[in-house]
C-alpha cells in the first residue's frame, strides 16, 4: 500500500488519494494519468496489467488499485 501511495503521490501530488473514492468518475485522473500509472504499477509490482484489467472500477480508488495489484500478483 505504501509503495502504491508513493507512486500516486509522485504522479499527481495535487490529488488527495486517501479521500477521493471516485478518481475516474470525478474526472480527476485522465487518460494520461492512467497510461502512466499502468506503466509504473507494472514495473514496481512486477505484474502484467492486461487491457481487460484497465477498466474504471479498478482505478476509482486506492483500495481498488491495491486489489488489482494483489490479484495480479497472485495469478
Amino acid at each position: 500500500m505504501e509503495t502504491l501511495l508513493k507512486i500516486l503521490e509522485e504522479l499527481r501530488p495535487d490529488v488527495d488519494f486517501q479521500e477521493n473514492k471516485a478518481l475516474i468518475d470525478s474526472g480527476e485522473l485522465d487518460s494520461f494519468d492512467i497510461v502512466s500509472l499502468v506503466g509504473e504499477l507494472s514495473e514496481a509490482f512486477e505484474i502484467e496489467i492486461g487491457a481487460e484489467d484497465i477498466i474504471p472500477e479498478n482505478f476509482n480508488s486506492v483500495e481498488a488499485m491495491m486489489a488489482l495489484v494483489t490479484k495480479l500478483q497472485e495469478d
Partner: protein
Amino acid sequence: MIRNIVEYLETTAARLPEKIAFVGKEERLSFGNLLQRSKRIGSYFLRYGKRNVPIAVMTEKTPSSVAAFLGCVYSGNFYTPIDPSMPKERILSIFDTLRPQVLLIDEKSKKAAEHLEYAGETLVLEEIVHTEIAEEALQKVRRTAIDADPLYALFTSGSTGVPKGVVIPHHSVINLVEWYTETFDISEKEIIGNQAPFYFDSSVKDIYAVLKTGATMEIIPKQFFSFPVKLMEYVAEKEINYVDWVPSAFCIVANTGALEKTAPQCLKKIAFCGEIMPTKQYNMWRAKYPHAVFANIYGPTEATVDCTYYIVDREFADDEPLPIGYPCRNTDIFILNGDRLAQAEETGELCIRGRCLAPGYYNNPEKTEEAFIQNPLNPHYPEKIYKTGDMARYNAYGEIVFLARKDHQIKHMGHRIELGEIEAAVNSIDLVENGACIYDEGGQRIVLFYCGKEATQSYILKKLRDKVPKYMFPNVMILLEEMPHTLNSKIDRLRLKEYYDKRVE
C-alpha cells in the same frame, strides 16, 4: 452557392427531418429538432440587436451544445466554445480578450460558472430553448449575411501566457467541409465516433460533416479514452464506422493490447490529426484493419483544421515517419527557406495560402501581424499567408513530411501548448523564483525545472490548477539550485535538456 453554414442544416433537415444527427449520453437530437432548437436559441439572441459579436458557450459536450453554437449563428453572431473544466484564471483571461456579448452555460456547467464569478451577463441554455421562433427576423439577419462573417473563435495557447483567439469565417469552414466530405466519402450512412472536444478545432469537421451529409455523430464519453477495451466495445455497440481522433487516443488502444481483445470490423475509415501519429502504433492498427482507409491529416487552427492530408497507400516501417502528404483542395502549401522556396528535400517553414486562412487573432493585432504576413513570393499586390512555425520538407515521393517545431510550441496528448504559457503560470506562483520547461518527445513528458526551495511539488501543482488546464501540468518536476543561462542571459534550454537526458539514463 452556400454562404452560411446553417444552410447545410436546413437542406439536410428538409431531406431527413427524423434522422438522428447527434447522440450523447442522455440526449439524441434529430435534424428536425436540431433546426428548431437552433432557431429558438437564435431568436433569443436577437434581442441584443448585435451582429458579428462573440457569444461564449461554456457547456458540457452534448447534442444541445451544437444547437447553442448554431443559435449564435442564426442570430448573426459567432461562438467561442469554453471548456468548463478550464481553470478560472484562464477563462477570465480569454474573456478579457474576447469581451463576449453574453456567456451561455447549461445546467451541468452551472457549478463551474459559479466558481468563475464572471461579472457579465450569463444565460442558461435550458431556460432559453423554449423561446418562440422569430422566423421573419431570422430571415432578415440571413439576407445580409456574407460568407466572410465570423463563425467561431477558438482560443489556443499563447507563449506570453495569454491565449490567442483564432477567428474563423464561414467560407473557411465551407471550404473545409466540401473537401472533407468528398475526400472521405461521407454520407448519411456514416456513424461518426467523435472524440475531439468541441473547444478543439478537430471537432469542427465532425460537426459540420454531419450537418452537410446527414450522417450521425455518436459523442463518445471522454472517460472511454482512458479505458481502451471499453472504448472499442462502445465502437462495436454503436456500429461506428468513421473516426477522426487524436493520435494519443489510437496509441493508448494499441499500447495496452486492447486491439488484441477487440477490433470491431464496423470501423471502415480511420483518420488521425492533431499531432504526429507514430508509425509503430499505426502499423498495429493496420494489422487489425487491413481493408480500412487510413488518413494522416495535418493543419493548424489558423488554417481551419486541415490543410494537408495523406491517405496511406503503401507500407511503412516502424521507424519511417508517415508523411502529411498533399494540400487539401483549394489550399496552397509551400515551404519557405527565408524568403525563397525551399529546394527539393530542403527543410523550411511550412506556409499556407487560401480560403482556409483565419483573418487573424481576435483583439490582437500584434500577434496577427507576426503570423499572418504578406506573401514574400508576391511583391505585386496584398496577399496574406500564414507562417505555421512548423518545419517540413518534401520527400522523394513529393509528399510533405513534418519535421519539428521552430519554437517552444509542443503537441502533448493532442493539445497544442506553448511552453511559455506554462512557464508564465509557474513564474506567477509566489514561492517559485524561476521556472523553465522542456518537452521530452520520446517519453511524452512536460519537464519543469524550477528554483525555489520552499515550493513543494504538490504546492506548485495545486497552484497551477487555478491557472492552466490539466493537460499543461508538468509530468516531471526538477528542483534546481540555479537556472543555467546562456551568454546573452537567456535560460539555457539545451543544458536543461542535457541534464534531463542524463537523469533519465
